[in-house]
């Protein structure tokens, strides 16, 4: 083999080896584990903290059992606890951490129950001007069991 060819082949070898070496440093270990992405990223996405515990955890373990059974039998049973009371996973894991009290303003109930054109007409809605004399809704309606005072 001619010396200039030898040199060229040697140089090519160095380039290939250099590429493999640098690639191994730059590409993360879990890349390509499941596809053309970093496999560890799946676990990172799974490990974010949960904020909403779910209504089941409110009724379980004799904490809010009575209130839970009243709610579970009411027309508001499709509305989960944390929809009004806010995320409470921290409270479930440590009862000393109290969630902020539920918003009992007319405006908050009105987010669902004020009359709106775009709402399905079968959904219970009120006209805030003519209904309730500006009293808080809970004055007459039990939010855990509407029409049960």
């Amino acid at each position, binding site marked *: 083999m001619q010396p200039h060819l030898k040199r060229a082949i040697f140089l090519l070898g160095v380039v290939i080896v250099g590429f493999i070496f640098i690639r191994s440093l730059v590409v993360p270990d879990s890349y390509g584990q499941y596809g*053309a992405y970093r496999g560890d990223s799946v676990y990172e996405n799974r490990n974010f903290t949960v904020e*909403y515990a779910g209504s089941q955890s409110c009724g379980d373990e004799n904490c809010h059992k009575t209130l839970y059974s009243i709610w579970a039998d009411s027309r508001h049973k499709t509305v989960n606890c944390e929809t009004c009371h806010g995320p409470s996973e921290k409270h479930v894991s440590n009862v000393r951490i109290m969630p902020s009290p539920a918003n009992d303003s007319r405006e908050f109930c009105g987010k669902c129950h004020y*009359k709106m054109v775009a709402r399905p007409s079968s*959904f219970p809605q009120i006209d805030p001007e003519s209904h309730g004399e500006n009293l808080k809704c809970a004055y007459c309606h039990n939010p855990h069991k509407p029409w049960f005072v």
Partner: protein
Amino acid sequence: MNISRREFTKIGCRIVIGAAAGATIVESIISNSIAAEPSSTGDYDWNEHYWGYVIDTRKCIGCGRCANACKLENDVPFDEPVYRTWVERYRVLKEGEVKIDSPNGSIDGFTDDIPAEELKKAFYVPKICNHCDNPPCVQVCPVGATYATNDGVVLVDYDYCIGCRYCIQGCPYGARYFNKEKGTADKCTWCYHRITKGLLPACVQACPVGARVFGDLKDPASDVNKLLDKERINVLKPDLGTKPKVYYVGLDREVR
């Protein structure tokens, strides 16, 4: 042994490069053989699930609790107009014009600024990432920082994203946004940290009227499959061929 300085450097370089290359080649062979094994991600086997989402627009009351819960669950900046899910209001005026709005993603609710007499029809449409089977956002990412998992969820690798915003441009549904706090693109994950623990996504749990339904498409008895078998289903922009996995019940022709 007599050896010139040039010879010594030559041999030395070859040995060093050869050793490094040999080690990396062996290492890559080993790591490839590990990856080739069938893998389940912990106690949750993602090959047993394929998630789907059904939105019943006829039930939505536009209260915005979904968008609010999403921001609280996923640390989406509250003071910026970015949303992983939001509710749009469509109002078709009697003269034919269509008005679409979503003030603060519906979190603060809507106000009736057009009297009912001037409207032909009005309705709410919740929007969310469609987790397409053929996702354009994944195709355009130059660094492989967004991908579809085996259980059909499109996720972002927040460590690897360089924040070039191509995916935000590429999404035909406007479902992606730029998270200034993270400096990366961000999107709905169907609350991947919740669904892999057996919980429902925060928006589904927060919906007071059951307009949002989430479940496993591989399970014939799941809530989504019950609806898909019974109702008349449509998806958003089917002509684009993105194959969305968010199915809509009662979708109007005006909805884009």
